């Protein structure tokens, strides 16, 4: 009877020695015992059933003969398997996303500007008159029936816009649309577009006085404003004067009518009728004057001058360098946005992947703890 020494702490084999012992490269009792132990442990498990082994061999042969994966899948695998390609793919996707974002943001901003430049219909539908506006004064209106406003002002402004020569027509169209959208109209316009030269447009808009300030602000969103000039003139006295004149003539008419009613002779009647006819014309003129003064207060004249810059004649080194700089600047911006999207996404994906792998491994290892 003999006791076989088992590899222990005092004379233990290290990893390489254990492998060497198991491979038969190391002689000695420890190695022998280790090999015996391995065979004993392997011997504890029964060999696979011949039927299973044969069946699995057939299946393995079938799997091995299977056609390579379709080209698309292989390409996808190549991309996925290679970290560099994955990064490139991720970069491309992120850049595309960035472009999309920029496009969406730019579209949204453009729409927002358009909404700011052109007011909502509900705002136009019922134009409210500011305190400068004269009361509406119809042809049949009476000077006595409408109260006199506090102060009346006639407003006017001139705005000079600067834009590229090729964009003058577009800007003029935008100004026209703006005038209409604010409840006004184009009183006059002159657009001169020269190919390769400086273009210019001049438009005079008639707008509700209450909308003048908003319109001037909106013009600045069509093109940069080079100069803005606003003026106002107090027309309260003119308005009051016209109103008094009308009231007087209306009083005369009433007196004439009373006199006519009291007239007894044919001569008196004819004389009074002639005076009434003259008075009717006076009243009509007075109403026109009053209406004109009211309109001057209610509507403002807005003169818009659009100056188009001179077109570049040919491509020079400086222009090319500047354009290249612009392109690089935009490309850098897009790249930066792409990175701003890619980096957090990559970090999230990495963290998620690491967490998932860690969790899965921990769960697997936990399966051993029974």
């Amino acid at each position, binding site marked *: 009877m003999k006791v076989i020494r088992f590899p222990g702490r005092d004379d233990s084999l*290290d990893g390489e020695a254990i492998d060497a012992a*198991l491979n038969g490269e190391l002689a000695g009792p420890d190695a022998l015992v280790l090999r015996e132990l391995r065979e004993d442990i*392997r011997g*504890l498990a029964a060999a696979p059933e011949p039927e299973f082994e044969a069946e*699995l061999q057939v299946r*393995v042969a079938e799997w091995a003969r299977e056609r390579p994966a379709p080209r698309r899948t292989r390409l996808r695998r190549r991309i996925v398997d290679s970290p560099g390609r994955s990064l490139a793919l991720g970069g491309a996707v992120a850049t595309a996303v960035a472009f999309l974002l920029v496009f969406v943001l730019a579209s949204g901003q453009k729409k927002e500007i358009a909404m700011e430049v052109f007011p909502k219909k509900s705002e136009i539908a019922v134009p409210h008159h500011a305190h400068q506006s004269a009361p509406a004064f119809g042809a049949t209106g009476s000077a006595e029936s409408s109260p006199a406003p506090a102060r009346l002002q006639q407003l006017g402004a001139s705005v000079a816009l600067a834009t590229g020569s090729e964009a003058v027509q577009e800007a003029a169209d935008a100004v026209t649309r703006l005038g209409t959208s604010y409840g006004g109209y184009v009183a006059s316009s002159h657009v001169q577009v020269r190919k390769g030269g400086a273009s210019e447009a001049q438009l005079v808009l008639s707008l509700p006085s209450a909308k003048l300030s908003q319109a001037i602000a909106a013009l600045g969103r069509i093109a940069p404003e080079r100069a803005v000039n606003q003026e106002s003139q107090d027309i309260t006295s003119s308005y009051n004067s016209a109103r008094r004149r009308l009231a007087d003539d209306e009083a005369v008419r009433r007196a004439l009518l009373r006199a006519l009613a009291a007239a007894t002779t044919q001569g008196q009647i004819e004389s009074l009728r002639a005076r009434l006819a003259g008075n009717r014309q006076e009243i009509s003129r007075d109403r026109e004057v009053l209406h004109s003064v009211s309109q001057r207060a209610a509507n403002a004249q807005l003169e818009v001058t659009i100056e188009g810059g001179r077109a570049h004649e040919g491509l020079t080194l400086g222009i090319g360098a500047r354009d290249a700089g612009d392109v690089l600047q935009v490309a850098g911006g897009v790249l930066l946005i792409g990175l701003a999207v890619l980096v957090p996404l990559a970090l999230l994906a990495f963290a998620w992947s690491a967490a998932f792998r860690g969790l899965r491994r921990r769960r697997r*290892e936990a399966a051993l703890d029974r």
Partner: protein
Amino acid sequence: MSAADLGEESFDALYRECVADVHGYALSLLGDRASAEDVTALAFERLLRARRRLDLRRGSPRALLFTIARNAALDELRRRKRRPDAGSAAAESLAAAPAGVEEVERRDSVRRALAGLSPREREIVLLKFHGQLTNAELARAMGISESNAGTRLHRALERLRESPLGAREVA
């Protein structure tokens, strides 16, 4: 053997070389033949289907095969935990038929010694002896460091040494 070399013939050779070991490892770990056969088949299938993207710098095909088999076996153990009735066939006799009385005694003492190990110790011993993996390959398969794998293996062998198996008597 490189990834490109893992063609039909090489795979066939790998199959013939490893099928019994993978089956033995899975059977020892799971305790029932049906699950062991499933895990064995799954391991070969996964290795074969993944052969185009195998990175053999991370281990030999044999080591990768045992890594896959280990993961599949642990997944099976997890399933059993969720469904306690699963794997109830583990009581069946797993051992190969021994040759004689002496061998019966040896196997019995080895079985008892293994049963005395913790599950993790038992698992690393099984993986080492059935898979015939180096410590580095063990470490990769288990997702731990090589030194940690070496320590665990050494501790498991130490526990075996302290068991009656370590001082068994042979004629």
